[in-house]
């Protein structure tokens, strides 16, 4: 099913939409249009880089790289809880042989799979033999799958030749700063030339290696994305400069991600009370960094062993035990993938040609009026955040209690625009509450901090009361309606009833600590 989404930079803007709707004004018919042709071809089917592709294609990470050569203040190296979802967390570390078998099994069962990444749980390049052995085997046995890795960059300059030799399509470097004084606030130590180095000198070396690695990859024609973690009060004011520099050096994309920090994580930031950015702060910085490159707002900050389409995690279907029992014919599986992906491409092509007549597509949001012209806008039209529980198709169609993430929209009288996605953390503090419903509800309410309302298909009595008590209006009246229209309707109802807050205060959006 082709799905066109609510965000204004989505491809295939409907020609019937008149005027300058807030969510589409200034956007391009193709969010990838600004990229050079060669880069576009490489990212077109990549679910992480292309928001449109993520509705069609799947990805997976394999956790073959447990060792790390640096410490970041947002990371805790204890990594074995299946209910947590954040980078650096995995359930089981695989050998390269186990990883290859798992990738072939997943790619046989999920023929939409186009991308394999190695992202940890440590640093792929601090484990170069394990990482490269995995890539080498896969490039032979599943040559249609794109290979990516994500690194802190410390060991990158010395491994650029190996990366090129293994036909790796994309490298992501996490660059949080260019200034060693800021770096010293983020990285307590690195392991370099056989010694542990702390303080400003550690950050200086790391930054230097990251920049050398970026330059060398670009010079060799490897696609480089830069990730940055936005840490309010530490590097937030510095990231616009990081963005400018890395793009000038040839990074094709700069992805700013919010800090995830709670005491339960046991990280320095989590335990020391460092807050993450509010959705507004994040969006403002992403806008400032992005220019016209408004990509990756759909980033889910996946675990290092995530499997499936973005937003779903099927890793439980592919445990070592289950994979060992599967009989896979890699050649037949590749042929099936190619057929399925050719069909996807045919549908994408058809959808682009005739956006409103595509069978099976849901061109919902873009064909609806962006605002009610018949209803004069109220004098005060504050922008508020509203959350939506959705299983996809652009509809309000998920039960509150089943949501593992919410789409957060910035809504005002002019319409609704996707601002971010907020995962429902189910961080457990031990076996006693692992998978506990109460922990899940508390996690959902934390995820919705700062939202005025949450729209879902259904909601239970208890969460309803808890949400109201938290100042968040639950709404189950718009089940199965298109998201943007439902948000606009709820906004108008709340405005008419005088229940919209004034501009929300930043404190209201702080991540619950």
């Amino acid at each position, binding site marked *: 099913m082709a799905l066109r989404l609510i965000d204004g930079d989505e491809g295939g803007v409907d020609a019937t939409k008149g005027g300058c709707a807030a969510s589409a004004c200034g956007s391009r018919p193709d969010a990838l249009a600004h990229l050079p042709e060669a880069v576009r071809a490489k990212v077109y089917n990549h679910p992480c880089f292309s928001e449109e592709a993520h509705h069609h294609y799947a990805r997976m990470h394999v956790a073959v790289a447990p060792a790390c050569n640096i410490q970041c203040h947002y990371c805790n190296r204890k990594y074995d809880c299946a209910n947590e979802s954040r980078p650096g967390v995995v359930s089981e570390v695989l050998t390269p042989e186990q990883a290859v078998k798992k990738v072939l099994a997943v790619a046989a069962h999920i023929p939409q799979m186009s991308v394999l990444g190695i992202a940890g749980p440590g640093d792929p390049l601090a484990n170069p033999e394990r990482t490269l052995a995995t890539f080498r085997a896969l490039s032979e046995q599943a040559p249609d799958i794109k290979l990516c890795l994500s690194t802190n960059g410390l060991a990158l300059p010395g491994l650029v030749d190996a990366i090129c030799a293994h036909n790796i399509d994309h490298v992501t470097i996490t660059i949080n700063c260019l200034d060693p004084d800021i770096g010293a606030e983020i990285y307590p130590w690195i392991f370099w030339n*056989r010694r542990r180095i702390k303080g400003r000198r550690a950050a200086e070396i790391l930054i230097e290696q990251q920049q050398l690695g970026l330059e060398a990859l670009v010079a060799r024609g490897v696609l480089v994305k830069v990730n940055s973690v936005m840490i309010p009060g530490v590097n937030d004011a510095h990231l616009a400069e990081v963005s400018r520099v890395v793009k000038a050096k040839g990074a094709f994309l700069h992805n700013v991600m919010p800090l995830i920090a709670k005491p339960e994580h046991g990280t*320095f930031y989590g335990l020391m009370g460092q807050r993450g950015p509010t959705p507004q702060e994040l969006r403002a910085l992403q806008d400032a960094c992005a220019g016209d490159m408004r990509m990756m707002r759909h980033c889910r900050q996946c675990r290092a062993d995530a499997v499936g389409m973005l937003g779903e995690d099927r890793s439980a279907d592919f445990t070592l035990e289950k994979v060992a029992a599967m009989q896979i014919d890699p050649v037949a599986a590749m042929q099936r993938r190619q057929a399925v992906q050719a069909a996807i491409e045919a549908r994408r092509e058809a959808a682009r040609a005739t956006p409103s007549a595509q069978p099976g597509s849901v061109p919902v949001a873009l064909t609806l009026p962006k605002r009610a012209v018949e209803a004069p806008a109220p004098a005060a039209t504050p922008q508020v955040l509203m959350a939506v529980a959705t299983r996809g198709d652009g509809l309000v169609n998920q039960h509150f209690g089943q949501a593992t993430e919410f789409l957060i929209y910035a809504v005002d009288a002019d319409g609704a625009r996707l601002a971010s996605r907020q995962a429902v953390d189910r961080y457990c503090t031990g076996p006693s509450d692992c998978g506990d419903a109460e922990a899940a509800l508390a996690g959902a309410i934390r995820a919705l901090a700062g939202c005025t309302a949450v729209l879902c298909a259904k909601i239970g009595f208890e969460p309803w009361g808890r949400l109201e008590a938290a100042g968040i209006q639950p709404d189950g009246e718009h089940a199965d309606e298109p998201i943007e229209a439902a948000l606009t309707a709820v906004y108008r109802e709340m405005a008419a009833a005088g229940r919209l807050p004034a501009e929300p205060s930043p404190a209201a959006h702080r991540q619950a600590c």
Partner: protein
Amino acid sequence: MAYQIVEGCVSCWACEPLCPSAAITAARPHFVIDAARCTECAGEFADPQCASICPIEGAILDARGEPVNPPGSLTGIPPERRAAAMAEIRAR
């Protein structure tokens, strides 16, 4: 004279390839150092390698049984802050 890996080790493999004496093995529930092989890197490196990359405070003990990386030394988290946070979480 030998180092020792104790409970707390997360089996991240970082130390194993660095050991000049091949004294570290991937055992369960955590990695172990063969005391007969360990030289504490004397004559090989300025700093013992396993303890220089280990990310877990308290997971490696020196010959006297003292943690080479005591609580707070790697993460910068004051031990009392960690203890208070853990108590808070348990109380929820």
